[in-house]
C-alpha cells in the first residue's frame, strides 16, 4: 500500500511528465491558450494513460522482455523480443485511442463532444508513449502499480497544462516585450515552473538511513566548527595576552 502512495505522489510531483521529463510538450504548448480546452485535453490524457500503461505492461511482461515467452513452453524461454517494444507499444496506443473514441462516441455523446476532438491528437502525444517506455525502463513490478503509474502521470500532466493555461490567460493583459509574446514567454514561464517543481524533489527521500547520515555529518561539522571557533578564541586570547604583555 505504501509503495502505491509513494509512486502516486512521486509521479505527480517529482517526476512530473512536463516539468521533469518534458514529455507532451508539443500539445502542452499548442493547446494551452484557454483553460477550458486545456482541461479537455488533460482529462483525455489521464484517461488514455491509465488505459494504455497497464496494457503495455501486460505486453511487456508476457511477450517482450527476455524470458517473457516462457509461458508458451520451455523452448521459448530464451527469446528476447524487447527490440519490438516501440512498434507494439505505439500500435497498442493508436488502436486504444481509436477504440476509446468509438466507444465514447457510442455511449456518451456529451463526453465525446468535450473530449472527441482531442483524442486523435493524443495518439501522437509523446507523454503517452513516454509513459509506457518509462514504465518499461523503470521496471514497474505489478499490474496495479502500472495502472497507478499511468493514472498519476496523467494527473501530473493535467495539473501542468491547467496551470500554464491559467497563467497564459492572465498574461495576455501584461506588457510582455514584443519578440517574447506568445511562444517565448510561455517557454520561460514553463522553465520557472519547472524550477519550482524541482523543490518537490526533497519530498520523498525515503528510508531512515540517508537522513541519519546527513545529521551525523552536520553534527560532525558543527563539532569541527566549534573546535575551530575555540581555537580561534584561544588564539585571540593568546594574541591579546601577547599584546597586553
Amino acid at each position: 500500500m505504501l509503495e502505491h502512495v509513494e509512486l502516486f505522489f512521486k509521479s505527480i510531483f517529482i517526476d512530473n511528465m512536463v516539468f521533469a521529463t518534458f514529455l507532451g510538450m508539443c500539445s502542452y504548448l499548442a493547446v494551452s491558450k484557454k483553460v477550458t480546452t486545456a482541461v479537455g485535453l488533460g482529462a483525455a490524457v489521464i484517461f488514455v494513460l491509465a488505459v494504455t500503461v497497464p496494457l503495455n505492461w501486460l505486453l511487456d511482461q508476457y511477450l517482450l522482455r527476455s524470458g517473457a515467452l516462457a509461458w508458451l513452453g520451455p523452448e521459448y524461454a530464451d527469446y528476447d523480443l524487447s527490440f519490438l517494444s516501440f512498434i507494439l507499444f505505439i500500435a497498442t496506443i493508436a488502436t486504444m485511442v481509436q477504440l476509446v473514441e468509438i466507444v465514447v462516441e457510442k455511449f456518451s455523446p456529451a463526453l465525446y463532444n468535450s473530449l472527441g476532438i482531442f483524442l486523435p491528437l493524443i495518439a501522437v502525444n509523446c507523454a503517452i508513449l513516454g509513459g509506457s517506455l518509462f514504465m518499461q525502463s523503470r521496471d514497474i513490478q505489478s499490474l496495479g502499480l502500472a495502472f497507478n503509474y499511468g493514472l498519476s502521470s496523467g494527473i501530473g500532466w493535467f495539473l501542468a497544462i491547467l496551470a500554464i493555461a491559467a497563467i497564459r490567460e492572465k498574461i495576455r493583459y501584461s506588457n510582455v516585450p514584443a519578440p517574447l509574446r506568445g511562444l517565448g514567454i510561455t517557454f520561460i514561464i514553463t522553465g520557472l515552473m519547472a524550477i519550482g517543481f524541482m523543490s518537490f524533489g526533497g519530498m520523498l527521500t525515503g528510508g531512515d538511513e540517508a537522513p541519519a547520515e546527513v545529521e551525523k555529518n552536520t553534527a560532525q561539522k558543527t563539532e569541527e566548527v566549534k573546535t575551530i571557533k575555540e581555537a580561534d578564541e584561544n588564539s585571540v586570547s593568546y594574541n591579546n595576552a601577547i599584546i597586553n604583555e
Partner: protein
Amino acid sequence: MALLSKKDSRLILDPLADNNPITIQVLGICSALAITAELKASIVMALSVVFVLGFGNVVISLMRNIIPSKIRIIVQLVVVATLVIIVDQVLKAFAYELSKTLSVFIGLIITNCIIMGRFEAFALANGPWKSFLDGIGNSAGYGLILVIIGFFRELLGSGTLLGIKVLGDPIEKTGLYAIGYENNGFMLLSPMALIVVGIIIWVQRSRNKALIEEN
C-alpha cells in the same frame, strides 16, 4: 547547384531559419529539451532525426497514393517505428554508453511531432525527391537548435565541449578558473533548456519582426 533548383533549395533553407520547426512551428520540443545537457547527445539526436525524417518522408511519399486516409496515422506510425528501431539498434551496437544517456528519448522520436507534422503536411502531397529535401531541411533546422542549446548548456554548465575541457581545469584552477570563474551547475538542470529556447526565440524574433505573434 545544378542538382537543386531554386525552389528545391528553399525547401532545405527555409526550415533552418524563418520556418524553424522548433521556434516557429512549435514541433518536436519534447526531445529537444531533455537530452541537451551535453553537446554530443544533442548531435547524435539530431542525426537520428535527420535519418528518420529524411527516409520516413520518402517512404510515405512513395506510398501516398495507396494509403487509405482513414488508417494513415497507424501506417505512418509503423513506418516511423521501424526506422526508429533501426536507429536504436545501431546505437545500442556501436555507442552503448550514449544510448544509455539518451534512454527512452530515441524511442520518443516516434511521437516527435516534427515527424508526423511533416508527413501530414508535406509527404502526403508531394513527390519523393521533394519530400526527401523537405525532411532533411526540417530535421536540420531541428538539429541546429538542438546543437545551439547543447553548446551553451555544456559550455556554461560544465566548461567542456564534447567532453574536452575548454575553459581550463576547474579542480586545478587553470585557465578561466584561475581568475575566479565558476561553472554554472544550473545550466545542467533540465529547466534551463526551456529558458535557453526562450532566449533563442527572443533573439530570433527581435531580428525578424515579421515573426512576432500578436496575442
